[in-house]
Each structure stands twice: as C-alpha cells, then as structure tokens.
C-alpha cells in the first residue's frame, strides 16, 4: 500500500444521516461526497476555490468542499444541497430560486443555495448591499446574477412568512 492508496475511515453526519467510507488521505471532500457517498448534487466547477459551486455547509457554515480534505471532517456535520429541502417541501431558498428564475443550467446553483441558506439564517432581513455581498463569492456563467439577488430577497420574505414553522427554515441538518 502506498501513501496514495492507504485508506482512512471517515465517519460524519451528512444531511442528518451518519455516513462512513474509507478513503485515501488526499480525497477531497467534494469527491468524497460525490463519488464515495453518491451525493452528486454538490458540483465542481474549478477545484481551486474560486467558483463556489462546491460550497456545502460544514457544521452550518459554508465551506468550499474542493479545498477541504475528507479526512479533516471526520466527526463533523455536513449539509449538501440534497439536505436543504424539508420532507415534501422545498426550502425557502430553493423555492425563491425557482420563483425568481435564479438558475439556468443549474450547475452553480447548489453552491449558491448552500451559501444563501447560511446567510439568511444569520441575517434574515438583508439590505440590497448585504444580499449582493452574500452571493458575490460564487460564480454563475448563465444568469447574470440579477435574478439570484432577487431570489435572496424573496427567500428572506418566504422565510419570514413561514416563521413559527421552524422546521421549514431549512439548511441545518
């Protein structure tokens, strides 16, 4: 067994479920989620930390899974795009992106959804400036961002409407 192929057991909670897999030390979290756990909703656009397509929530905070080794998240909690929706209902952010036409090809979308979900949890009523700031770490080549920014505000609105139904707030596994 070479250094490249020695495997380490990684156990973590993904979208509320305990998952584990034995992977080499160099396996990226993005590849781990996609290829070892079969959660292909997380996308890879650059693998060098710029586009944000691979953003997931690590213990509730957005991280670039392409810049994170899977072995470093052993024992932690991860939420991916697959874990944002409630049982039979889209999360406010997912609904808002749909209503506002905030996606076209959808490749960048999981990263935006995760980033915006964490953002609105901490800042449920953002100003125009704050909403822009919140999405300005992610690249989208299709939409021109205008409808994405609209979706951030719409999601805040939906979130406010559904307050009192905390299970609808989404985002935390």
């Amino acid at each position, binding site marked *: 067994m070479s250094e490249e192929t020695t495997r380490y057991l990684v156990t973590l909670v993904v979208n509320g479920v305990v998952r584990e897999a034995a992977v080499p030390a160099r396996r990226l979290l993005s590849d781990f989620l996609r290829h070892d756990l079969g959660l292909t909703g997380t*996308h890879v656009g650059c693998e060098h930390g*710029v586009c944000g397509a691979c953003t997931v929530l690590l213990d509730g905070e957005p991280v670039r899974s392409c810049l994170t080794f899977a072995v470093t998240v052993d024992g932690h909690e991860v939420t991916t795009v697959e874990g944002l929706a409630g049982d039979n209902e*889209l999360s406010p952010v997912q609904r808002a992106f749909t209503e506002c036409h905030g996606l076209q090809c959808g*490749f960048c979308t999981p990263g935006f959804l995760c980033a915006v979900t964490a953002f609105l949890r901490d800042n449920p009523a953002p100003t125009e400036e704050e909403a822009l700031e919140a999405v300005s770490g992610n*690249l989208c*080549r299709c*939409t021109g961002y205008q409808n994405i920014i609209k979706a951030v505000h719409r999601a805040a609105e939906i979130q406010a409407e559904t307050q009192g139904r905390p299970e609808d707030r989404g985002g935390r596994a």
Partner: protein
Amino acid sequence: MTTKLFGEPVQRREDARLVTGQGHYLDDFGPGALAAAFVRSPHAHARITDIDVSAALDVEGLVAVYTWEDLPGALAEPLPLLIPHPALTHGRTAYPLARDIVRHVGEPVVMVVAEDRYLAEDACALIEVEYEFLKPVVGVEEAVQGAHLVHEDVPGNVGAHLVQEVPSREGRSAADAIDAAPHRLEFRLDIERSASMPLEGRGVYARWDAGDGSLRVYSSTQTSTSVRMAVAAKLGLPLPKVEVIAPDVGGGFGVKIVHPWPEEILVPWAARTLGREVKWTEDRREHFVSSAHERAQVQHVRVGFDDEGRVLGLDVTILHDHGAYTPYGIIVPIITSTQLLGPYKIGAYRVEFSSIYTNTVQVTPYRGAGRPQAVFCMERTLDRVAAYLGKDRTEVRAANFIGPDEFPYDQGLIFQDGRPLVYDSGNYPESLRMLKEMVGWDSFPEMKARAAAEGRRIGIGIGCYVEGTGVGPYEGGHVQVTSDGRVHVSTGLTSQGQGHETVFAQIAATELGVPIERVSVVTGDTRRFGYAVGTFASRAAVMSGNAIALACRKVREKALRIAADALEADPRDLEITDGIVHVAGTPSASIPLATVAVLSNPLRYAFDEEAKRATQFSGTSAMDRPPVDEGEEPGLEGRDYYSPIRSTFASGMHAAIVETDPETAEITILRYAVVHDCGKLINPMIVEGQIHGGVAQGVGGALYEKMVYDEHGQLLNASFMDFLMPYATEVPRIETAHLETPSPLNPLGIKGAGEAGVIPVSAVIASAIEDAEGIPIDRMPISPSDLYTLRLRLAG
C-alpha cells in the same frame, strides 16, 4: 386551468430537480466507471521524439495507456473538418492523440485509464514525453508574416481568405465610394480572446454492451446526434448500435458544439476495447488549454460618409486568429463579416478576412459567434463618424437605419448558412426611440454636466445589432399521446440551461389543449429522436419550437378525426380543452384525449381496462374498413420537421451610462438598458434570463476577460483566479424592454434570443467610456490600467 400558455412567464419545470441536487450532469453518471486522464503538451510547438510510459506502469489501479500508435483505423486519422468552405483552402484538424507534432499547450498526447481519476493522474505524472522545440507562432500579426509556420504545409499561416463585396446601388465599388465621399476616416480596432467558459467543463462517459455489441455514450455536448454519427464512423460501428445522450448540461455557450472532441471518441473506444465503463471529466485547467476560445481579431476600417453621417462606402479588413486547428471551419469570421452591417443600409461594402493559424488553442464559436467583433467594428465606426461631424451618435445611426417598410431587406451577402443575407422583419427606429426614452438619452448632457460639477466623469454609450438566428438546415419534433393521456414530446437538439423543457411544453400544451403538467419533454437523446443538428446560433426555440408545433398540429388533426368518429360529429366542430375533445358549445358531447389515444391503436390484446375499448370484439371498429385505414398509422402520434428557407433576424439596442474615476481609472457601469426584439415571446421570463446572462458575459468581455498568451505560447491566466469572469458585484442591474416584431418566416412568428445579450456590450461600454473620457477607445477589453495608460499616452 388554462391551456393557453404561449407567451406566459411559466415557471421552469427543470428547476425542481436542479434545486434539490437531483439533476444528472455528466460526472454524476457511472459511479463505478474507470477514469481517463490525459498527458497534454506543455509546449506550444514541438516535435515529440520519445514517449516513455514505463514508470507509470507500476501505478496501482492503472488499466491502460494509449498513444497515437495504439489507435486503430479511422481513429488514427485527423479529426473531421466539420464545416468545409471553398475559401478554407488550408483547413487542418488535430489527431485525437498527437502524432509527431504538438501545436498548442494542452494538446492531448497520451491517454491513461485507471481505477479512479487520482490514480490516472498519478500515472500521467510519471509518463515522460521528450520534445524537440519548434518556434511557436503567437499573435495574429506575427503569424501572418509567415516567418515560422504552425503547419509546415500552410504558407503564411493563412488557413482561409475570403472577400465579399456589395457595390452601391449605382454600381460603385466600396473603394470608389469611399474615395468619392465628402468625408473619410481610417483606423484600426483590436479585439482580445475570451471563451465560453461554462461552469461545467466537457465530459464523456461510455458503456459498451458486449452482449449485443452496442455502445451508449453520454456527453456534455450541444449536439448528441452528430456526436453519434462521428463516434459510429470513427469506431466503425453500425449507426443503430450507437446511442448518444446529452444529459443535464452545465452551460455550453458554443464551446460544446465542437465535436467530436478527441476525448469524445477515445473514451468510447477505450470502453469498447476494455469492456468496461470509462469516463472522463474535464478539469478547469484542461478546459482553458484544450477546449476552444473565441473573439481575437484585428480590424482595419476605411469609411466614407456624407454630411448627415450616411455611410457611402465601408471597407473592412479582418485578421482573424483561429488558433492551431480549424475543425469548425471559418464560421466565426464569416459571421463577423456578414453581421457587421447591423440594422444599417450601407452604400457600398467590401469585407476581406484572413483566417490565421497560431500556436494557441483553437477558436470556435462562443455566444455571439463573431458578432461582438462585428458590432464593435460597426458601432465604433458610427461613433467616429458622429464625432467627426459633431453630431449626436443616435442621429447618425438613425440616418443609416433600414426603414420599417423596407423588409424583406437583402444585404447582398452570403450568410453563415450559405444562403442570402435577407432580413425578415424589424423596426429599428422604434427600438431606438424606446431605448433613448428608457435611458434618458436626450437629457444626459445635463446629467453629465451636473456630475462634472461634482468632479465626476460619466459617459453614455450605445450599440445596435442585428442577429441572424434560427439557422437551418432543420430540426424535428415528435409528439405522442399515450393511453394515460400523457403527452411525450421529444426533439433531437440539446439543452444547456435555456429552459427547453419548459418552453417546448408550453408550445405543446398550447397547440394540443392539454394541461402542461401532462406534457413531458426530452431533448438531446438519440434514443428518442435521431435527426437533429444541434443547439447553437440562437436556433433552438425557432427550429425545434416550430417543429414541435407542427408535430402537435398533426396529432391534433388526427385526434379530432378519431374523436369525430366516436362522437359522430364533424371534426370542424371539435375543440380540445384541458385534454378533453368536445363539441364546441356542447361540453357533454366529449371524449378524453386518453381515450382517443386508446382508439387510435386497434388492439388484439388488452393490457388494462382502458385498452379493452380498442380490442377486436369491443365493437368500436367499423366493419367496412380495415382496422388501420389506408393512409393511417396506429397510435396518436406525429412527427414533423421545420426547415426554413433562411434565418430569422432578431435585433436590439443597448445603452449604458458609465463612470470613470478621474484618479484610478476605475470603470463603473451605473445603468444598463436593453431593448430587444426576438419576435413573439414564448416565455418572457426565460428570454429575460437569457438577456441578463448574455449582458453579464458581455460585461466580462468588455472590461475583464482575456486570454493572456506569452511569446512562448503559454497561457498565463488559465484559472478562474486569473481569468476574470464577473461576479455579482461586477454586473450592473439590467433594465429591459421588449419589442415584438413577429417573423413572417415561421408558424410561431418567433426569432432566437440566446446570444443576443452579449453581442453589443463591448461596443456600448467602449462608446460610454469614450464619451466620459473624450479619448478614442479602439480595443476591448479595457481594464482600469489600460485606461490609465491610455490617458497618460494621450496626455503625453
């Protein structure tokens, strides 16, 4: 529930799966597949003297290593030249794996297949390729000197040379018209390289079924039907044994219309050779150095005009950099040279281009496909004419417009489809009026003065374009109503995020009178529809949209015929509402479309309750006619094709207000306004989304994006860190207004909208910066440091 959905901002049906992570993009397939990776040339121009793979053979999990020498039959030949043209006298394409010589950094040399991508890349790193350096040719003006050659047998590095000339109505040549004109100007323009840069790169995944000798290929492509034909030909397989599917595709913008990519035939070949599933997913660096770029041109302009600013003669000479190979022919410079005329009637026109080889990544269409360069040229020209005459820039444009009553208008040129460039319809003066009103053009001088009083520099710019959309040759649509009342629509062309599933469902639901929930749409899957051309040139809605509408009309006619029989009514009295065929005004005399579907297919065997109605003892079939009457076919389905005589011509005008910082030369877009005319809108929400995305790419091209090659042919900014695509913070809010001038050429009256947004942006921003700064802007993109240097140069 209304079934009239054409023209409504219907929410997208794609989204439910895409926002929940349930989409299926290329790399989401084949979890157990072997992974391919490539050793690519690190040199721009070199001869391969040795390939030593021995060190790689010890890598655990290595399955196979291939070089050009391993490729059998047609696979060892150069890739196809997709679009031949008589002017492309020296077309050259690459081998799937380099044979002897590499001609750009990134060219594939060795293919490695291993258990996973990490291991495949380990093996790649251990393969030693020895090169003997050849002189790299970089930069189109150096290339055209011909001192060093990209291809030994292409003198002067000239791949193609084409001249088109349209004399004035009086029969004057452009040269004569310019010489005789009251005023003349002559100048040069420079346009940098950019690229489509979809967030998802290319990718191919292939499964070989040894049992029945069939191959299934998934590719992140803009044309699955043509990939299928290429794969079958290259692998020597019968066409019916090959199926190609474009799954969810994470953006294309032109680059994915090129095919077959080396990987697109090598991966299926490896799958068949190894009897295993094989997948290759492009990484970002590979996308930068081994897919395709666009834009780069140098233009020399001579123009002659009268006191009103009417262009009497225009002569444009273009040096077009097409990179190392020409698989996509000379489509880009053809489009530049023909679409340059925009909404204007020009006295006499002469355009000449040379398409030149350099040791850089090949150039093929990127959204706009040669038009941003064309519009940059024409609009910069008209701005100079206006400045020279001291006239308002919009006045000069209006003086040159084709009038609303002059359609069809023949520009006298041959377009990219090999057909005459004849505009179908448009209303340019009205577009201009709307735009000026929206952006406050006439009151801008006061705004500018007020800003100046505060020590701020602002400027306004304008750009107009006409875009040939919906080019042929054809697309098809198939529509089937099954006995459960569901409607299955398929078309061969592919989707990359344009919302085709939604707009095609809107068309089908409207045509057939069924709830949209019952309609499902499949695109880009050769198992469902084998004949298609592809998604490019803003053609999907026009081509497949009309084909699907025509197929629906066939189905509707048949449904009414069968229902009329069953209801003992005249088909002309029947309507379909909410999926039910009924006599107009008598809702009780009705039959569901589902039942009509059952009756359309005479059965011997019943498979469910509904099907019993169509069996032979059910008493539903007339005894004096065969069960399937002459000229009929079983089933409630229809197939039709749409093949237009020529393209439709969409148009639009953009205006922007920019601010430039007097100290730092930072450029900020304060307002961006768009008037857009793509004929009848199927879904205004989706059209607007297309415009937003196009303008954002245009802003990238105008201010940020370029491919920086050094003199060795190394691409210095091959990452998202250094190739600056706009984030949300760089894109202005885009204000839009629509004008709907229907196309007389197709049943739905539509024109394409996909590329429009990007086309005039560089011209508009340059115009606005020029207005703010009072210095001529003659290149794109322009960065703050470019502007700063320009200021210094002109001050000194």
